[in-house]
């Protein structure tokens, strides 16, 4: 994969270059100390990955992303997580690395990029790289990515253009579909038991006729989903 590094600090560029050097599949084509020079370069070259410092004077990383017509995969490098989260809504931004970047974290990021296909649509619901194993889910609320622990989710309910995610502590309203969030959830933990409901399987308190009790939520079970629910129960 061809990549470029954009960072106004020489020390930071040296570090990213060193991190790249340990990954044979990565080839650093060029480095830039400002985003404008990089734009000129990108008009002439095809690049697979950009390592981009988000906080640069004058023309920031976010400004840069907004100017790109067909952006490649972009990995933000930053010390400011809040900046990164704000920018994470862009489809081309596939990860962010908090400085000082460790080799392990960098390799995880590259692994993630390697697994991405360029045509794959990105949902507004993002699985964070660190949580590939399925511990967390990031939901986009008012341009903020809020981290939810999967094991704290009780029920997810479809409500028109929105879904409502009920956790042990709070309820979140997210502009997406049940189908999209279902794709992000581990099957072992979650099960759709009704056209409008996904439940956290381990949170079931009891099942009565055509409903499931989860905390204080009574959730209906549809006829078509009932066999799968029953199959997964550890019945005596």
């Amino acid at each position: 994969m061809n990549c470029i590094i954009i960072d106004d600090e020489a020390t930071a560029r040296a570090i990213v270059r060193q991190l790249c050097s340990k990954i044979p599949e990565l080839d650093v084509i060029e480095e830039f100390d400002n985003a404008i020079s990089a734009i000129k370069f990108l008009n002439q070259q095809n690049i697979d990955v950009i390592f981009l410092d988000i906080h640069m004077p004058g023309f920031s990383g976010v400004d840069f992303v907004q100017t790109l017509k067909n952006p490649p995969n972009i990995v933000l490098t930053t010390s400011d997580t809040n900046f990164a989260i704000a920018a994470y809504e862009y489809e081309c931004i596939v990860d962010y690395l908090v400085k000082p970047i460790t080799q392990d974290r960098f390799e995880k990021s590259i692994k993630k990029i390697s697994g991405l296909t360029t045509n794959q649509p990105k949902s507004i619901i993002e699985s964070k790289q660190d949580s590939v194993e399925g511990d967390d889910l990031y939901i986009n609320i008012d341009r903020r990515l809020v981290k939810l622990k999967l094991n704290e989710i009780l029920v997810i309910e479809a409500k028109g253009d929105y879904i409502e995610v009920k956790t042990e502590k709070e309820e979140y309203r997210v502009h997406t579909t049940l189908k999209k969030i279902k794709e992000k959830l581990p099957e072992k933990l979650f099960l759709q038991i009704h056209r409008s409901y996904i439940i956290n399987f381990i949170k079931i308190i009891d099942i009565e006729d055509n409903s499931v009790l989860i905390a204080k939520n009574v959730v209906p079970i549809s006829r078509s989903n009932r066999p799968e629910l029953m199959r997964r129960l550890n019945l005596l």
Partner: protein
Amino acid sequence: MIEQPNLNYVDELAGDDIEFRNQFITIIKDEFPLEKVEYQGHVSNNRVKATAEIVHKLKHKFNILGMENSYKLAVTYEMELLDGKNGSESKFNEILETIEKYIKTI
């Protein structure tokens, strides 16, 4: 008491790559004094926003040099500057002096 800078992070990244280690030291020896001068210029001319920008830049070096507490202080100072305050200025200046002394030894 200001914590002492170190090259642990750089050494970890370098492994056996002495060339990278040396290259990094050369870069920081070049870059840090320039940023320090830039910082001092902004402070003495009361350019608050520009001071905050250069503090932001300098704080990365604190991180790279393993100075976690100094990094936190720089974060606070940057916020203070953006808020029209400068309560952490003298401590920040002490950190810069500590780093300047250190990089002369490496």
